[in-house]
């Protein structure tokens, strides 16, 4: 191993969660040395693509209780209520902090921060910066982080292994993409903030880098994955590319229309009641699929879709509030939403599940390991996330884990350097063996495509026993085929083929945990909707799913949901 770098804590990921953690850490304990390792330059992280907004109580007609209840109900009562309580309390502070750091939040005439309506939220509580919220948030955080000399960045370093000292995580092995060399980035605590895993599916809003690396890293070290079966389908993605048209379009008054020109959320009963387009994502996605299955979809070269109509909003409002939606529709769908409806269909968007962590971000079963952001499952989102809660989640729990990590680091030891270095050497050897690896001629792209279609057929909007079991078997078979991959790129410098290989390896592990978790849950709840078990079953299934790694195949377990002031009730809007 070429180099060992020692820090107090190591953060993997430079998205909203990772950057917020880094800043929180150096502010909580000035002088702490914080490593920020990211496989892309931080400003490329997929947080950049978030469009619609971030939720926190700001208006006089709103209160924490309402935000809490909306979130609990949105989660189909699978969210942990202590976590939700903490979240709604911290949320306004975090967004205010971002404001002080220069985030260009959109404003009301009186100079206060403007808020908009979002699906599943009772009132306007989503802060926004036009429709480029993630972009502004990420760049504000990144630029703000540049002033702290104690944050040491390792850009374009791909973390391929957690370095363990017994049961304690004491650093990471990172492949410097530029040089092809392994480096050991050591710290007394490690925070995973690697984001989601949308790329496990063929049709997703997620970018190329969202391959579930952090989930797989923790999974392989024995940390359980929690609630992996809950995968959010966003109701408004562009057919073909999967590029997201933000929910803010509906928040600003957009309508969903079928081939008969009907506003089907109003004319038919899909459970969203008077909320109509402002219903939660899981329900609207299901409504769209049902419309299409009932023959009221619109044909296109990319299959059937429905329409999102913004034409009644007018050019001025669209340009002011939704400029990016207009830009994206024009470039990627060839329609101008000022004059024409936008073709849309449900698209894989967000992982409710992830690394099982407690309210402070500490992972279950491994010491010194934390996780925050989309990679983690603190059980804020339960079975269905409400739009705009996730950016705030990254900030709230990112900051919290940053503070907790430096505190933890103070009270613990560096670990056994020699052992860590040895582990790094082994990882270096593994990577070195991959360059130009001879195999059975299997191609990365082919296995990836097969994995994606297996996941789409078994873990889509609607699920069934047989197809889920088939997907479980398919993924196991793909893991076999993966052994036979042949690699051609022998260069050490910027070898993206090896990165693609490592990412596929991670995605297969994520796919495994998603499909087996899904196959185990015999009810319909939130985003997990079974055609063969349509009801929610609070007697047997009001609990989290845990999925443990085992070379012989995943092992499943259950964990209690923390209830509190809100008792489960029928979820109707």
């Amino acid at each position, binding site marked *: 191993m070429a180099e060992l770098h020692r820090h107090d804590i190591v953060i993997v990921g430079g998205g909203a969660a990772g950057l917020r953690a880094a800043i929180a850490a150096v502010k909580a304990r000035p002088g702490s040395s914080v490593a920020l390792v990211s496989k892309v330059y931080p400003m490329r992280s997929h947080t*950049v*693509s978030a469009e619609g907004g971030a939720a926190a109580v700001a208006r006089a007609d709103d209160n924490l209780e309402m935000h809490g209840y909306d979130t609990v109900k949105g989660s189909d009562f699978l969210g942990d209520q202590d976590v939700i309580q903490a979240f709604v309390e911290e949320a306004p502070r975090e967004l205010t902090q971002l404001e002080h750091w*220069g985030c260009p939040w959109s404003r009301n005439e009186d100079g206060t*921060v403007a808020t908009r309506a979002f699906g599943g939220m009772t009132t306007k509580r989503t802060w926004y910066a036009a429709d480029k919220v993630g972009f502004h948030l990420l760049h504000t955080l990144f630029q703000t982080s540049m002033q702290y000399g104690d944050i040491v960045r390792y850009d374009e370093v791909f973390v391929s292994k957690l370095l363990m000292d017994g049961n304690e995580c004491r650093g990471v092995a990172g492949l410097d993409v530029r040089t092809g060399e392994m480096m050991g980035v050591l710290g007394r605590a490690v925070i995973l903030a690697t984001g989601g895993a949308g790329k496990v599916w063929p049709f997703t809003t997620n970018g190329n880098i969202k391959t579930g690396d952090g989930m797989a890293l923790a999974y392989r070290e024995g940390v359980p994955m929690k609630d992996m079966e809950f995968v959010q389908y966003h109701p408004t993605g562009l057919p073909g*590319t999967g590029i997201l048209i933000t929910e803010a379009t509906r928040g600003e008054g957009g309508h969903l229309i079928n081939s008969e020109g009907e506003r089907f959320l109003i004319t038919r009963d899909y459970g969203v009641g008077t909320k109509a387009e402002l219903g939660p994502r899981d329900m609207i996605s299901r409504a769209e699929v049902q419309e299409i299955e009932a023959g009221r979809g619109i044909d296109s070269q990319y299959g059937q879709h429905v329409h999102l109509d913004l034409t009644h909003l007018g050019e001025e409002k669209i340009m002011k509030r939704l400029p990016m939606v207009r830009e994206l529709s024009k470039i990627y769908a060839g329609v101008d939403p000022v004059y024409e409806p936008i073709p849309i269909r449900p698209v894989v968007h967000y992982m409710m599940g992830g690394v099982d962590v407690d309210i402070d971000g500490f992972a279950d079963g491994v010491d010194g390991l934390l996780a925050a952001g989309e990679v983690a499952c603190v059980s804020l989102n339960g079975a269905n996330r409400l739009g705009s809660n996730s950016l705030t989640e990254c900030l709230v729990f990112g900051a919290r884990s940053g503070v907790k990590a430096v505190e933890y680091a103070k009270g613990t030891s560096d670990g056994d350097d020699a052992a860590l270095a040895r582990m790094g050497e082994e990882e270096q050897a593994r990577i070195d063996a991959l360059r130009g690896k001879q195999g059975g001629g299997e191609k990365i792209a082919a296995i990836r495509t097969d994995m994606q279609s297996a996941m789409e057929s078994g873990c889509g909007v609607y699920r069934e026993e047989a197809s889920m079991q088939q997907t479980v078997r398919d993924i196991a078979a793909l893991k076999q085929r993966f052994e036979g991959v042949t690699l051609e790129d022998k260069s050490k410098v*910027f070898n993206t*083929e090896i990165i693609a290989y490592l990412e596929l390896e991670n995605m297969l592990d994520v796919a495994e945990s998603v499909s087996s978790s899904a196959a185990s849950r015999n009810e319909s709840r939130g985003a997990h909707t079974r055609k063969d078990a349509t009801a929610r079953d609070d007697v047997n299934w009001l609990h989290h799913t845990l999925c443990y790694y085992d070379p012989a195949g995943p092992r499943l377990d259950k964990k209690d949901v923390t209830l509190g002031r809100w008792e489960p009730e029928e979820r109707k809007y």
Partner: protein
Amino acid sequence: MAEMLIKKFVVTRFDPDQDDVPRTETYEVPCHPDWKVLDGLNHIKDEIDPTLAHRWSCRMAVCGSCGMNVNGEPTLTCKKAVRDLPDTIEVTPLSNFPVVRDLVVELEGFMDKLKSVKPWIIRAKEKAVEEGPTRQSPEELEEFKQFSMCINCMLCYAACPVVANEPEFIGPAAIALGHRYSIDSRDEGAAERNEIFRGEGTVFSCSYANECSEVCPKNVDPAAAVNQAKFNAVIDWATGLVLPRGGKE
């Protein structure tokens, strides 16, 4: 399925382990008419030649990773449709940057420059969260908003003739981002940044070629930012002559 377009991709290849200098490689790519240039490159990587190295992620023109020269023009490859290009599509790494490999360029120089303009809110005393959000009118927001739209895609650097010849030049995007904070009503660091802008590779190196703004995919208009900063510096200098001290805002 729509009719495929057969395009010839002429791509720069450079592997420092093997090549002394960059070379080109030509690929025949059957393109779906809706494809962007990036889809073509991904097709090459997945199906024809997995050794090709290029950066990309969001494929929706917002992460800023996929900038390259396409037929000589700095372009976001995820935004440029193959349909709008001739049969031969020449893809080269961004000009004015050292080339790491194939289509991947060295960004560390930019990261240094960005940091040097202090792109963060500077205040004499940091505001406490308890004080709540600052008030900022929509008009105040509008003044700097455009310059905060930069996705760091580096197209402007690839187009600017001064960047090509003056290594110290801080360049359009970094100056735009520094200026963006200076004119934000919440910031008090304008004087500090003006000092930086007067250092080496200053706003005065810019010869107002305006190429940066021509190629900017996000309409940031960095040329405006650079020249506003220049204007401010001239005013600063002139008021400094009249009122030798305290003339600065």
